[in-house]
């Protein structure tokens, strides 16, 4: 049963030892790596220049609302040159010209400002692309030459089909496939799981390695599968720069509404002229145009595209790259979040919580052995064991210089110390330790299995501790739920978003973590296929689903989900299937994205409402002016006086 567990759930294959992990997920949480910001100095100058370039009618016509303003500007400009162009005006021509000139200036400013807002938003995107480009780091790769020798070259010189050799401690220079060797690789940058994963030739997820991950033990020969410049980030840069933005469904709907409103007001204003003429209150063309521009929703019309671009930019500031604005917007509509447990809900690292002695040993003895086995272990798990052991009054009673540390390897799945007195202390996955003990002629008691089950029931990971053929006890490694997550889930619930946790853990463990984290639902003993099933089930109820993923086997689920967020250092397949890529590989960001998506819609809605509601005020400012020309309403206050007098008389 245990071996079955291990082969099915990668989580159990990890033991916390030996991983010289450089960037565990606890790191990513604490010090979020922000892409270096390109200088924003030239941004505004460029935007101002762009604002005028965009006055080109071919650009303006794409936005019907602003195009009307554009046409209006031209007309008012013409009547500034010659006030009598469209019929004689009674007013003093000089005065009329001044008025028309003012209107022209205001309209022109409206146009330029709308363009400026858009240009600034676009400029930020471009700056982001520049920043992205600078993040691509060059590493030194050992290229394997046909004669078997190696040559050190820059990783940017690697081509598809090249073979490189990586040894423990190296950064893997490019995406590729393992052709030879077995090694453990720290993929915490991809997966958020701090424990190393086993890489060996043959299988899909087991054999593919990703550029930027670090090999921890042994060595590998890798066949490079991507050319430099063809990577995901490179394509992203092209996308951000190209600013080929397709409008989102909501944006289209809103544009339609705005266009209709503009048309309605166009008809209204056009018909006002003959109507006003009929009642001997003629209006000038400049007044009509200013009435029209005041009424049509220019506020939202001018800023609509800027809002869309700004949405992408907001996401980019969170170090997430969205392939389309549509994806960002969809974030705001998400009903269900599917989250992996490890790295998302819990910290990737488990910390030692308790020693459980077996076979009649005391807690102190277990602490002593555990400490001896962990002195050379630099992982957070190992350190936490040392701390816990010292709390239990254990101390190192041998010279560490004379002892030898036994590093964790993917094959043995244990680590430990060979003591100066010849004894061997080990800690590791329970069945691995069992095998070690048996090979030293020891027997395995049922007490160990009881302890193992007890720890599992509590939602923890058990590590067995032994010295030579004697098993001393079990270390209870507890999954630590990330701080503040419960509040965020509560917040999401209030927004109407349901959270589902997926984990390879068994039912009991999963339920413990789920309760602690406050997720709405969980799926235990989940296989990658379960992920896509969950998403399909939710979608069949008409819900929009967001998920995060990294592995190749996540790709179908990422494609199926309405919003799929791939981790930056995930496999190519995952990144291609997703519609967003998180450069920090921090899965909790999905929660931030939901907020951004909502804010994007809210901004648009608020501006629309403001723009339309404003019309009421504008009407009551402009219509009396028209009436006033007729001499009917000399001024509001006067007419009020008239009314007052009348009601007074009654």
């Amino acid at each position, binding site marked *: 049963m245990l071996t079955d567990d291990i082969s099915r759930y990668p989580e159990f294959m990890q033991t916390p030892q030996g991983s010289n992990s450089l960037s565990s997920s606890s790191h990513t949480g604490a010090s979020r790596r922000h892409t270096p910001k390109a200088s924003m100095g030239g941004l505004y100058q460029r935007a101002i220049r762009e604002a005028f370039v965009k006055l080109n009618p071919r650009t303006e016509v794409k936005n019907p609302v602003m195009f009307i303003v554009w046409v209006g500007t031209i007309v008012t400009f013409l009547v500034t040159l010659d006030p009598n162009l469209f019929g004689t005006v009674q007013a003093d021509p000089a005065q009329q010209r001044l008025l028309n000139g003012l209107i022209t200036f205001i309209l022109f400013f409206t146009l330029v400002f709308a363009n400026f807002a858009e240009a600034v938003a676009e400029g930020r995107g471009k700056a982001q692309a520049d920043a992205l480009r600078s993040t691509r780091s060059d590493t030194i790769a050992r290229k394997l030459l046909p004669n078997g020798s190696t040559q050190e070259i820059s990783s940017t010189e690697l081509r598809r089909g090249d073979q490189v050799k990586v040894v423990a401690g190296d950064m893997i220079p490019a995406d590729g496939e393992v052709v030879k060797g077995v090694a453990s690789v720290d993929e915490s940058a991809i997966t958020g799981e701090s424990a190393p994963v086993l890489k060996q030739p043959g299988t899909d997820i087991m054999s593919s390695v990703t550029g930027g991950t670090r090999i921890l033990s042994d060595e590998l020969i890798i066949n490079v599968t991507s050319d430099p410049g063809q990577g995901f980030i490179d394509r992203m840069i092209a996308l951000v720069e190209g600013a080929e933005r397709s409008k989102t469904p909501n944006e289209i709907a809103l544009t339609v509404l705005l266009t209709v409103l503009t048309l309605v007001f166009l008809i209204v204003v056009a018909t006002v002229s003959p109507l006003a003429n*009929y009642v001997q209150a003629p209006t000038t063309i400049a007044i009509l145009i200013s009435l029209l521009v005041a009424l049509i929703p220019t506020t939202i019309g001018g800023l609509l595209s800027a809002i869309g671009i700004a949405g992408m930019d907001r996401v980019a500031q969170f170090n997430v790259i969205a392939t389309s604005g549509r994806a960002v917007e969809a974030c705001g509509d998400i009903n269900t979040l599917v989250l992996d447990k490890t790295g998302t809900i819990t910290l990737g690292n488990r910390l030692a919580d308790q020693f459980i002695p077996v076979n009649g040993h005391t807690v102190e003895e277990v602490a002593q052995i555990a400490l001896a086995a962990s002195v050379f272990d630099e992982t957070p798990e190992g350190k936490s064991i040392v701390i816990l052991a010292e709390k239990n009054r254990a101390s190192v009673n041998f010279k560490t210089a004379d002892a030898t540390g036994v590093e964790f390897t993917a094959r043995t799945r244990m680590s430990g110390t060979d003591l100066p007195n010849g004894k061997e202390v080990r800690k590791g996955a329970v069945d691995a330790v069992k095998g070690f003990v048996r090979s030293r002629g020891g027997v395995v008691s049922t007490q160990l299995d009881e302890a193992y089950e007890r720890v599992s029931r509590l939602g923890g990971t058990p590590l067995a501790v032994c010295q030579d053929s004697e098993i001393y006890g079990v270390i209870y490694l507890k999954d630590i739920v990330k701080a503040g997550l419960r509040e965020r889930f509560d917040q999401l619930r209030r927004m109407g978003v349901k959270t589902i946790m997926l984990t390879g853990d068994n039912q009991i463990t999963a339920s413990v973590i789920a309760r602690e984290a406050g997720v709405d639902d969980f799926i235990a003993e989940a296989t990658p296929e379960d992920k896509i099933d969950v998403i399909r089930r939710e979608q069949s109820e*008409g819900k929009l689903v967001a998920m995060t993923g990294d592995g190749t086997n996540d790709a179908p689920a990422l494609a199926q989900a309405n919003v799929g967020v791939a981790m930056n250092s995930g496999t190519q397949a995952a990144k291609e299937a997703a519609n967003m890529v998180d450069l920090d590989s921090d899965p909790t960001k999905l929660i931030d994205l939901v907020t951004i998506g909502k804010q994007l*819609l809210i901004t648009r809605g608020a501006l629309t*409402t403001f723009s339309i509601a404003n019309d009421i005020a504008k009407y009551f400012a402009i219509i009396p002016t028209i009436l006033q020309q007729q001499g009917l309403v000399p001024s509001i206050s006067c007419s009020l006086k008239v009314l007052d007098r009348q009601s007074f008389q009654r």
Partner: protein
Amino acid sequence: MVLAIYVGFIITTAIGEYQGNPAVNALLGEQAPNLEGKEVRFGWAQSALFATTTTGTMCGAVNSLHDSFMPNGGFVTLSNMFLQIVWGGQGTGTAYLFAYLLLAVFVTGLMVGRTPEFLGRKIEKREVVLASFLILLVHPIAILIPGAIALAFPDQLAGISNPGFHGLSQVIYEYASAAANNGSGFEGLGDSQPSPLAIAGGASSTATALWWNLSTCFSLLAGRYIPITALLLLAESMSRKQPVPLTSGTLRTDTGLFTGITAGIILVMGALTFFPILALGPIAEAFQIARGLG
């Protein structure tokens, strides 16, 4: 909400009628309700009630001459037909109200940060196109454009019996009544054949009758069938959508707040379109009478 608008409209009309025409009152030397053009059995109050109801419901029957109402009455009857939602009309019922609701949901839905949904169905481009384009836009086209043409050539085409602001109301009322599927008349126009004015005016009046028959025909067809077709398409597309589950984040459409917002949307999108007309027609007329120019 509709009831509130309705009651408000009745009160506005009734006050106007109750106060009577100051010019007439000045002659009479006493305060009297306006009874011109009314059946005395009904009196001012019932006439006001009936006028408001008949224009609101697209009924079209009249028990008094709307032409003779005070400007308040003209304002209300016109507004009713511009909005078409104060109870909704015969045949189309509350359909227009749904179109406004849809737009209200769209705008407010954006403000709560979700893709707007109405009755559990997402509102997307198609719905907005149908609701706004065909319903919001057709009405002004059917009323304002022929109205403007008629008023551009008042003598040749319109045959208005009361020049000035009231004449403007007469013309617009005619088209509003046609487009809003109402059929009542403000009257006072040379629009019948043989026209009453034809007896006095001769050939030109026959021309006005022809113009009226043709142009209102256009308004009637456009104002009636385009929105009805659009509404059917809208219903069809809504019925095909997969319902979205109700979550706590969904915008509730059964609250007082939402009702208020819908009223605001109706005011802005529906009423403001016609506000210049109302300003130049009944409102200007009201000022005129108030200042004793009428």
